[in-house]
């Protein structure tokens, strides 16, 4: 490690949490397209939708009850043990799905990888002991027997337990909503988000709960707790006017990528460089949630990426005013608080605010081979955002 690679604080624990979270998100994120398809079908054809139609609305329940959990179980199994893991993951998922009253996304996220892990151990145990010519027989029947067993166990024990857990979490969210406390969740969500736990929170926790709620009520506010693009936009705007001068030129492209493209990661560095800005994100996030909650609005599915376009496409019918107002309010609040925290640009001269960036630049100056070209290439590098956006 040199000055070029600043040590990240609390590395071991943070990396471990990130890895677990990344794992949960990794089961859901590749399947977001299917969630969006379900969201579109729901928004269009349910009785309160745009084009109520009982024939097409028949798609809604099987997709949420079977297809989406099985997809997640498949992906979770594949992460652990390749194609065989994926196959046993789907079988195990059917176990928790059958007989459950709520969409078993959380259940799938548990039993899919678990079943694949058991198969992986069993495969390792059998490896090298199978007589020549019997490999296929053993492979197929070990998967079949284990899969059948785990599926039965799912119906019998795991399913009811997860059903109960999902219900309890749902009640907890309902309690927070009824007592107007949901906005406080920003205190946890916003800091975790900029530490790159954004996908873990949104796709690993809030999304599955939101889908359970949306299946019941046609929409959920839980989809909007983490993914609201308002606070990030407010912070970037504050940076544009009052941030360190050197960084200002990068902000407009970042704002476009964030707000329109929905890649929130792009604003995290701006917060990490001035950590007190996290207060602006919390204030903005909380006020946005307060507005969403007060106006009783929700989305029909996970908006992913968290772009304004995804929001508009997935807003429940008749909820546009509250959704747009919440985004606007959270952006305005984050901008206001962020501008204050940046001292309205005045304190800039006294503060070595971009230490890390300066270090990085120092390092590239030290790098003899490329020092001159690095400076020269700053131009193409900053021109790149235009192409990316």
């Amino acid at each position, binding site marked *: *490690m*040199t000055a*070029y*690679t*600043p040590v*990240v604080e609390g*590395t*071991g624990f943070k*990396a471990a949490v*990130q*890895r677990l979270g*990344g*794992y949960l*998100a*990794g089961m859901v*994120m*590749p399947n977001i397209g299917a969630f969006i398809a379900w969201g579109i079908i729901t928004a269009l054809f349910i009785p309160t939708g745009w084009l109520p139609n009982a024939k097409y609305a028949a798609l809604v329940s099987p997709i949420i009850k079977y297809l989406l959990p099985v997809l997640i179980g498949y992906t979770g199994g594949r992460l652990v043990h390749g194609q065989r893991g994926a196959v046993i993951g789907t079988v195990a998922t059917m176990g928790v799905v059958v007989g459950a009253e709520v969409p078993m996304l959380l259940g799938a996220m548990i039993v899919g990888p678990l079943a694949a892990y058991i198969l992986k151990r069993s495969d390792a145990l059998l490896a090298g002991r199978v007589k020549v010519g019997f490999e296929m027989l053993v492979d197929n029947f070990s998967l079949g027997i284990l899969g059948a067993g785990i599926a039965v166990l799912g119906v019998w024990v795991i399913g009811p337990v997860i059903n109960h857990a999902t219900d309890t979490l749902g009640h907890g969210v309902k309690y927070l909503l009824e007592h107007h406390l949901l906005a406080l969740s920003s205190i946890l969500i916003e800091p975790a988000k900029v*530490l*790159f736990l*954004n*996908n*873990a929170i949104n796709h690993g926790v809030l999304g599955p709960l939101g889908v359970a709620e949306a299946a019941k009520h046609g929409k959920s506010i839980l989809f909007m707790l983490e993914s609201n693009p308002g606070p990030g936009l407010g912070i970037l705007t504050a940076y544009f006017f009052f941030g360190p001068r050197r*960084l200002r*030129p*990068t902000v407009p*492209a*970042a704002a476009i*990528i964030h707000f329109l*493209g*929905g*890649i929130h*990661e*792009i604003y*995290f*560095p701006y917060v*990490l*460089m001035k950590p007190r800005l996290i207060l602006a994100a919390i204030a903005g996030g909380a006020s946005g949630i307060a507005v969403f909650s007060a106006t009783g609005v929700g989305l029909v599915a996970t908006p992913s*990426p968290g772009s304004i376009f995804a929001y508009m496409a997935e807003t429940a019918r008749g909820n546009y005013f509250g959704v747009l107002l919440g985004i606007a309010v959270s952006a305005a609040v984050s901008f206001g608080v962020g501008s204050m925290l940046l001292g309205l640009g005045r304190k800039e001269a006294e503060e070595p605010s971009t230490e*890390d*960036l300066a270090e*990085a*630049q120092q*390092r*590239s100056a030290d*790098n*003899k*081979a*490329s020092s001159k*070209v*690095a400076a*020269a*290439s*700053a131009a*193409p*590098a*900053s021109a*790149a*955002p235009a*192409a*990316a956006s």
Partner: protein
Amino acid sequence: MASIDASDVHKLVVACDAGMGSSVMLASTLKKQLKGMPVTVEHTPVDRIPSDADLILVHQGLADRARATGPERVVVPFQLFIGDPAVASVVATLKNGGRIDG
């Protein structure tokens, strides 16, 4: 402290948490900047960086996870997704030769 000569870099991997968002964006930017160079640019989740990656670019907040995939790998952390000096320096070194330290 791993390092690699620019001429030995055949595969550059940009990694992010999910391998679907920010890494895709930076990878497409780098592909344009490195057009015509004998370097493939790919994007992956940080926990699944392919073993034949010669050079790994990752945000500082995820650098430890990238390093955990192999201590001998050259991991260059950056801070900004747009116009980061570390990324610019890597591009310049790839084009003009020299050593890249991770």
